């Protein structure tokens, strides 16, 4: 939802980043306000996932230029965990399996790290149990998954649901969903999208990275951006996604080339 005079949650200016000496992001600009849902689409290799990792603070990516202001502060100087505690959440494209750590313990430790940061008392196991039962509803997750090791032996859909469960628990200001729809059947997609929609509010913002327009039937974006070669080249509304689906990315490239030629 577009909110009148909404708080600027994220402001990215001329962001440049590289991995292993190869520049992937080449001057990316984006502004996201509270209440908004933004989608980033684009062909493979355009830098979508790199952008999400740079926002979350992955150590393999080096920012070489530009700035990322999150709620008024420069997050490029913050470690990944500090960004998380400040309210940035990345739902991973490939959530990791952590054998030996139960999902419940993982969720509690993560939740308490946020509580501690806010100066609140940590929740004990019993109180946390009540809280998590409530959150399970958001993604219709079977409580049995809490006592299993984190993501170990989970199906693709279960892993993505677990990501949204973490999001429901940590209540981020900015949620970045990196190809959360990839590999999901239609039922799982509905459950995941439904969970995201329940969490979207006028206070937070979502950045949905996807390959496929299909997801955007369920999570309706306010803005659709097209990424190409490390930059956002076109921005439109949800209709743009439909057009991309129908005409492919070549069309955007041609448009851009024509625009550049006209200048």
């Amino acid at each position, binding site marked *: 939802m577009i909110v009148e005079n909404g708080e600027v949650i994220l402001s990215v200016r001329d962001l440049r980043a590289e991995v292993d000496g190869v520049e992937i992001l080449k001057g990316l600009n984006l502004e996201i306000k509270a209440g908004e849902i933004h989608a980033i689409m684009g062909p493979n290799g355009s830098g979508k996932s790199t952008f999400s990792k740079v926002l*979350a*603070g*992955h*150590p393999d990516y080096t920012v070489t230029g530009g700035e990322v202001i999150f709620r008024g502060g420069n997050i490029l100087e913050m*470690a*990944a*965990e500090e*960004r*998380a*505690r400040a309210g940035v*959440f*990345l739902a*991973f494209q490939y*959530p*990791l399996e*952590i*054998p*030996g*750590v139960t999902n419940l313990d*993982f969720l509690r*430790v*993560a939740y308490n*790290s*946020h509580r501690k*940061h806010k100066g609140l008392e940590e929740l004990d196991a019993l109180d946390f149990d009540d809280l998590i039962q409530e959150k399970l509803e958001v993604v219709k997750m079977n409580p049995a998954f809490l006592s299993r090791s984190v993501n170990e032996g989970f199906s693709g859909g279960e892993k993505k649901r677990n990501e949204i469960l*973490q999001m429901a628990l*940590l209540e981020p200001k900015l949620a970045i969903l990196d190809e959360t729809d990839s590999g999901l059947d239609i039922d799982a997609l509905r459950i995941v999208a439904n969970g995201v929609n329940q969490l979207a509010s006028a206070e937070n913002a979502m950045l949905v990275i996807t390959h496929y327009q299909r997801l955007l039937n369920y999570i309706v974006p306010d803005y659709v951006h097209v990424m190409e070669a490390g930059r956002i080249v076109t921005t439109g509304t949800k209709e743009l996604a439909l057009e991309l689906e129908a005409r492919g990315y070549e069309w955007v490239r041609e448009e851009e080339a024509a625009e550049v030629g006209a200048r």
Partner: protein
Amino acid sequence: MSVEVVGKDLKLVSADREAYFARLLQRVNQRVSQGDEKWEWLQELRSRAAALASEGALPSTRDEEWRFTDVSELLRLNLQAAEPVDVPVESVAALSLPEAAQSRLVFVNGVFAPHLSEVAALPAGVLAGNLLGGELPVGIEEYLGKQSGGEEVFAALNTAGLTDAAVVWVPKNVAVAAPIHLLFVGAAGAESFIVQPRCLVVAEHGSSVTLVEHYATVGMGCPDKPAARPYFTNAVTEIWAGENAEVTHIRVQREGAEGFHVSRGAVAQARNSRYSCYAVSLGAKLSRHNLEVFQTGEGTETTLNGLTMIVGEQVADTHSVIALNHPHGRSRQLHKCIVDDRAHSVFNGKVFVPKAAQLTDAAQLSRNLLLSSKARVDTKPQLEITADNVKCSHGATVSQLDAEEVFYLQSRGLSAADARNLLIDSFAGEVIGQIPVYSLRKMLSRCVGCRMDSWE
């Protein structure tokens, strides 16, 4: 010229190695109640062992069984017999297990400490005490010192110096509910000393018992901090699991930072018996644990779980043997090592499956986590199979902490250190979490946590 000097040194060292055990025995061996008929058999056992040990040489890294573990430093220690040390009850409070408050035997520097021991909780007929103190179980001479492999030089040294022992005897069909805590405490004296703990456990037909064999120190501060003086623990434990008996054996080695620890566990498993071992090695400057399981009847189950967690310059070596010799045996072995700094862990696990052991189901896995670029792991899972109708597997992995896993946890708000610790804790937890004594699980988790804190 310099070559000659080196050659001379080597020769000297080699002569020292050959004379090592004979000299040590002369220096430290005490006699037991000479002339007492009751102890004649023991005196004989000791004499035979003393002869064996005196002929043996201190192993060098040229011996295949000691390739990666150099015990030469023992040559430099002027070891004396351990002095008796009076240890107040409060000193061992931190080492006690509430589950075993009424089933505990404590030895201080090898000497039984009755004021620290308590065995009120044991069912009638169960004997738990020291060899010198109580009435001897009938037929004890058929068991003490009678396990295969006792001629190995360190085991022979222990037997040669055998004056007292912890003895646990569980009669037929008796189930002991409380774990029996065998606590061997080292207490620093004025000199470097040698202490030779000894355990004998006999679980008769259909009985069941849980043992906690525990090596620790008092008066030396935390085992992670350097102790006043080097010392040497040379332990032997013999376990006899009778037909259909169940023995759960937890072994915790937390010697002081200047300690040397060599130990041998020998287990004989009769038909249909179950033996589970959880061996946790955290302490000592250098440790070597030899564990040998001999199958003496069909249908046995053997579970060996090991966890080694070492830092600094520690060396921890585990050599295990599961010698199957009858059909339908089942064995499961998981050995995990967490190695930081310049520490070095060694694992050699042999499983023998000869022709007589058809329909054996054996699996063995060695998993190692290296936390520093200078840490070292030598691991050798080794299956020797001549039977042709068996199911056997083995494997080894060596890895570092996964940077992507650390990032995943950080992205959820955990600090890098907390993320690392959670991953290490879960790696250790696979072994610790299975230990069936709650307070010991807690104690060991704290040790793991304490050790991780010191890394930050």
